[in-house]
C-alpha cells in the first residue's frame, strides 16, 4: 500500500500545528484591528451633511470663534448646534445667492428645519458619547481642555469628521492623569477657559505656537517632559481638579 502522506506532510503537519496555536492570536488581533479601524469607529471619516459646512473655512480662514455658533459650550453640558438664524446672521449679507446655501435660506423663510435635497430632516451626528455617559462640555472648557483634544483638528476639517473614538480607556487617559494634559502658556498666564479660545485666536492670527500647542491644534501625540509634568501637577492643584473624583464611576455614569 502506497504511502498516503509524503515526507513533506510532516512539515505541513508541523506548520498546521503552529497555525492552530497562532490562530486565536491572529483572530484576536484581526478582531481588535477591525474594531479599532475607522470603518467601525467612523473616526476620520467625513460625514455628508445637508449643507457642506466647512469648519476650515469658517474657523481657520475667517477666524470665527467657536462660541459664535456653539453658544452653550461654556454654560451647559451641551455645546449646542447653531440655529438657522445663526447662519443667516452673515449669509443674509454674503453669499446670498449661493446654491449650496439654498437649504439654509429655505429653512429661514419657511421656519422649518434644514432639509436634505431629498427632503430628509436633520444633520448627521458626528460626535456622540454613549448614552450612559453624562459628559459636560462646560466643565472641561473651564478646566482648560481644548476643543481639539477631543474633537481632533477641527480647523482643518472641510467636512467635519469624528476626531477621536470615545472609548472609556481614552477618557481615562486624562481622567487618571490630568497633569499630562494640563498646561499653561508660560508667557501669558490666564484663566484656563480663556486659554482654550486664545489658542484658536493664535491659530487664526498665524502666531507662533509652542510645540505643545501645535500638538494640541494638530491632534498629534505629545509626551510632556518632566518639567512640564511638574507644571501640570501644579495646575491640577491650582485648578482644584480632584483626581479621586475624576475616576469615580458616578462622575460620568449615573
Amino acid at each position, binding site marked *: 500500500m502506497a504511502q498516503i502522506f509524503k515526507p513533506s506532510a510532516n512539515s505541513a503537519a508541523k506548520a498546521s500545528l503552529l497555525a492552530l496555536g497562532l490562530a486565536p492570536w491572529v483572530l484576536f488581533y484581526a478582531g481588535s484591528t477591525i474594531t479599532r479601524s475607522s470603518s467601525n469607529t467612523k473616526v476620520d471619516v467625513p460625514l455628508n451633511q445637508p449643507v457642506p459646512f466647512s469648519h476650515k473655512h469658517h474657523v481657520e480662514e475667517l477666524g470665527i470663534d467657536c462660541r459664535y455658533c456653539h453658544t452653550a459650550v461654556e454654560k451647559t453640558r451641551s455645546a449646542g448646534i447653531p440655529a438657522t438664524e445663526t447662519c443667516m446672521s452673515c449669509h443674509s449679507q454674503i453669499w446670498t445667492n449661493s446654491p449650496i446655501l439654498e437649504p439654509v435660506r429655505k429653512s429661514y423663510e419657511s421656519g422649518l*428645519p434644514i432639509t436634505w435635497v431629498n427632503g430628509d430632516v436633520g*444633520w448627521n451626528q458626528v460626535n456622540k458619547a454613549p448614552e450612559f455617559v453624562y459628559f459636560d462640555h462646560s*466643565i472641561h472648557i473651564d478646566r482648560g481642555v481644548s476643543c481639539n483634544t477631543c474633537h481632533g483638528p477641527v480647523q482643518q476639517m472641510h467636512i467635519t469628521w469624528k476626531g477621536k473614538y470615545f472609548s472609556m480607556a481614552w477618557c481615562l487617559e486624562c481622567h487618571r492623569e490630568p497633569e499630562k494634559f494640563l498646561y499653561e502658556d508660560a508667557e501669558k498666564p490666564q484663566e484656563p477657559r480663556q486659554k482654550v479660545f486664545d489658542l484658536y485666536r493664535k491659530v487664526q492670527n498665524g502666531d507662533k505656537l509652542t510645540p505643545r500647542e501645535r500638538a494640541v491644534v494638530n491632534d498629534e501625540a505629545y509626551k510632556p517632559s518632566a518639567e512640564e509634568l511638574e507644571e501640570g501637577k501644579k495646575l491640577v492643584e491650582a485648578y482644584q481638579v480632584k483626581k479621586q*473624583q475624576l475616576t469615580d464611576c*458616578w462622575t460620568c455614569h449615573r
Partner: protein
Amino acid sequence: MRHPSDDQAAQPLDLDAIREKLESKGGDYWRGLAQLSDSPEYSKWLEDEFPDRASLKDVDRRTFLKLAGASAVLAGLAGCRNLPTEKLVPYVKAPEDRLPGASQYFATVMPFGGFGFGVLARSVEGRPIKLEGNPDHPDSLGSSDAFVQAEMLNLYDPDRLAVVTKDGQVSTLDEMLVALRAALATQGANRGAGVRILTETTSSPTMARMVGAVQKQFPAAQWVRFDSVSRDQADEGTRLAFGEPLNVSYDLSKADVILSLDADLFGGGPLSVRMTRDFTGRRTVKGTKVDLNRLYAIEGTPTLTGAVADHRLAVKPSEVDALTRALATRLGVPGVSSNLPASVPAKWLDALVRDLRRAGNRAVVIPGTHQIPSVHALAHAINLALGSVGTTVSFRKPALTPANGAASLSALAKDLEAGRVDVLLVLGGNPVYGAPADVKLADLLPKAKFSLKLGMFDDETNRLCRWSVPETHFLEAWGDLRATDGTVSIAQPLILPLYSGARSAIEMLSVVAGAEAEGMALVQATWMAHVGGQKGWDSALNKGVVPNTRSAAVPVTLNLQVPAPMSPVSGMEVVFLPDPTIWDGRYSNNGWMQELPKPLTKLTWDNAVHLSPRTAEKLGVNDEEQVEVRTTVGAVTAPVFVMPGHPDDVATLHLGYGRTACGKVGVGPGFNFGALRSAGAMSISAAELRKMPGKYPLASAQLHHSMEGRDILREGTVAAYREDPKLRPKGLHEIEHASLYNQTEEWAKSGLPQWGMTIDLDKCVGCNACVAACQSENNIPSVGKLEVQRGREMHWIRIDRYYRVTDAGKSRDVTQDRYHADDLGDKRGADLLDPSKVTSHFQPVPCMHCETAPCEPVCPVAATVHSHEGLNQMVYNRCVGTRYCSNNCPYKVRRFNFFNYQHGGKNLDRPYGNQNYVGEKDVPLLRLINNPDVTVRSRGVMEKCTYCVQRINTVRIHAKKEGRDIEDGEIVPACAQACPGQAITFGNLADKNSRVSQLKAEPRNYGLLAELNTVPRTTYLGRLRNPNPELVEA
C-alpha cells in the same frame, strides 16, 4: 394564570394565637398581623427578597450548559454592530435663554380641592419634567406632596383625550363651536333658563369673572358646583357657628396643644403641606433642649394624624359628635349638653381639657372635613372659648360663596328630569362617577338637549355627554387660583397643549359668553390692572404669587345654633374617605399613584374594606376574603383588609376606585364604594356587612423588604429621652465599633466632601411625598399589581410602617423594654384589641450608602463600588444582573428590573396593572416625562437610591465653574426637597458645621442595623413622643 397568593390556603384570622404570640414577645414592632402569627406568608417575605420568581430547578444540567453557552456566544455577538448615525435637528430660531441641556424653572399653580398650590416646574428643552413646591407660595413654602409629583404623569398620560368628539365620533372644534352657538342661540329668549354650567369648586377669580360674563348674557343660567370630596360640611359648620360660610385656616406653628376631631391634618393632599410643615417645625429636639407641641387625635378611622399623635383615641365616627359636645361643655361653651360615650374614658377627656385650658390661645381644635356640621360649629366655638381665634385659628371670607354640592347636584338632577335643561356644560370634574347613588345623574344626563364635557379623560361623565372636548392640563394653560389664605397665583403654561383641540374651562366659558378669547387674554383682563402693567405682570409670573391678594382675617362673633345631637349608630357604620393615593378618582389612571403604597395599609392598586381585627373576627373574615357592604342606597362586595388600630364596628372605605371608564390603568382596580353614598350621607353612614364567599387578591407591600433586626426603630417619650437621650431599647448591648482607620483625618486629607443623610423620624408623618418625588426625579417605572404581589415594586425609597402595642399612658413604656417584657407581666396581647393602644410608626428607608457596604464585595463585575465621596455607586452599564448585591443587602433597598418596564409591554404578561398599559405606541409620549440627567434602566439591571447623584454633579460643576466650594444646603435630593415635614437632611459630613453633621452629633442619631458594622451614611434620629404627664400612670 397562576397567582402568587394561590399557594397559600386561606388562613382564618386567629386572634387568640396572635394574642399569645404578642404577649410572649413583648412590645416589639411588627409589620402586620401575619408577622405576629409567624405565618408562612411572613416567613416567605423574610427569607427571600423576591419570592415567586420562576425557578431554574426544572432545568437539567445539559440544558443549562447549552443555554449558558448560547448566551455567552450571543452576548459576544451583540457587541458587534454598527451603531447607526443619528440625526440632529437644530432650531430655526433658537428661543432666547433656553440653553441645550440646561433646566429652567417656571412658577405656576396646581389646582387641588378648589384651591391653588404654588409649584415651580422644571423644564428641560421645552419639556416640563418635574414639579417642586414654590417657596414663595403660602401653602407650599417649597415643599410638595405625592399628588403634586403625580401631576407630571397626568400631563403625559397616553390615555388623555386628544380630539373633539360628538356621540363618540371624531369631530372638530369648529363643528362643536357651531353646535354650541346654535344651542345657545335658542336660549336668548328665555334668558338662558335652560343653561347649566357644572364645574368643581374653584377659587379662580377669572373663572368667577367668566361665569359672571355668561350670566350677564344669560341671567337665568345656573352655575352648579359639585365635588365628590367636598368641604360642604365645613362650610355648613361655619354657617351654624357664625351665620355665614367662612374659610378656616389653622396656624400650627403657633400651637402648643393640638386636638384633631377626626381630622387628617397630614393626609389631605397639597392642602396639608403647610400644616405638616408648621407642625414638624414645632418639634425641636436639640441636645437637652426639647420643645415639642402635643397632638391629641380622636379619630374614627386610622390616619397619619393618629399615627403621629402623642395621644390617640379611636372611636366610632358617629361618636365624635357626642365627644365634641362633651368637650364643649367642659370648656364652657354655652348652650350645649351631652352625655359622654361609654367608650371614652372620662379621665382621658378631663386631662385633655386641662391641657387645652393651660395652652389657652396656643391651643387649637381642628374638626375633620368629613365630620358632620355640628362638630365643625362646636370646634369653632371651643376655639373661641380658648381664645385661640386670632392666634392659631383664623377665618376668612371665601372669594366665592360656597354652594352645597350634593344639594345643588340633586337640584340639577330634578331639572334634568323635568326637561328644564337645554344646554349642560360640564367643565372638568367627573360628576357622574362622584354623584351620590340616589342622584341618578347617569340616567338623567342624556336628557339634556345639548351636553358637553370638557375633560382630560374619557371618563364616566364623558361617555354620557354628546360632545366631548379635551381639556388642557394645568401645565398647558393660563389660569389663576387662590391659596387657602386667598393669595392669588397665576398659572402659566410650560408647554403648548399636547393636543391642539384642547381648551381650558375659562376659554370654553368665553365662548358661551359670546366673546371667545385665549386664556392669557382672559387672565390678563382679570389681573393687569391689579398688578399695574406688564412689569407687574412679569414679576407676578416670576414669583408665582400676585402681591396684595391675601385676604384679611375677619373677626367673628359666635351665633351658635347647634342641631340636636346625632343619634348614635348602634350597629356597623362606614366612613367614606378620599383614597390616600388616587383621591376621589382623579389619579385613577396614574400608574405612579396606583402603585404608591397607601401610607397605613401599604396597599397598592386596590381599595378594600378596612376593618379592625375584632370586627373581622366577628364577621369571620380575614385579609382578602370578601364582604358585602350594604347601605340604604346600594351594596358592594369587596375584599377585607384587617387593620390593627382601626376602631371596632366601623369600616373605612376609600373612594376613587371601581372605575368603569377613564383609561387603561384606572379601569379594573378596586371597588366603587361611592355607590353606597346618598346625598344626605356623603361621608358617614350606617351599614350592614356580611361575609361573602371567595377571595380577591390584594397587593399590599407591608411585608415586603422586611428586615430582621433588633433595633430598627427608636422612639420614646420625653421622659425616656431625659433618661437615655439615645433612646436605646433597654437590654440592647450596643456594640462600639473601634477602627484603626482615622476617618476624620482621611476625609480631611482627601479634601473631598463626604455625603451623608439624616432622617428625623420625629418629623416624618409618613405622607409618601418622598416616594413620589423620587419616582418622578429618577425615572422609576410602575410595575403593575401582579409584579407588586411578587415584591418587585421599584421605589428607591420606601416607607416602612410598623405597628406596636403601646400605651403612652403607662410609665413602664417610658423606657421601652423590648427584650425583657416577661419581667413586666405585660398584657400587650390583650391591648392589641384596644384600637387606641395600637400605634403606627413610619420609617423611610432609602439606600444607606454604607461605608462598608455588603453589596460591593459580592458583585462579580464590580458594578457597585464606592466613590471617594462616600457614595455607594451603582453602574448600570456594568451590571449583569446576578442580584448578589441585593441578596447581601441587609436593608433590602436594591431593586431589580425583572422586565423592560420602560420600553413597552411585549415581554410583560400584565404590565402596569390589568391591561397592556405601556403598549409600544404609548412609549414615545411617556418618554417625554423622563429626566434627561438620569439613565433609563433596562431589563436585567439592578438599581437603587443614588442620593440624587445627578443633582450632586450639577451643583458640583456649577460650584467648580465659580471656583468655590459647595455650600451647605445647596444640594437637595428630590426626597428632601419634597418632604413637607423637613425630615430629611442631606449634606457634607466632612464639614463639621453643616446641618447634617450637627444632626448626626445629636444623641438621638442612630444607624439602622448598625450592629452589622455596615457604617451607614444615612442615619435616623429617634422619634420622641410628648405625652401629657397627667395621663402617664405611675
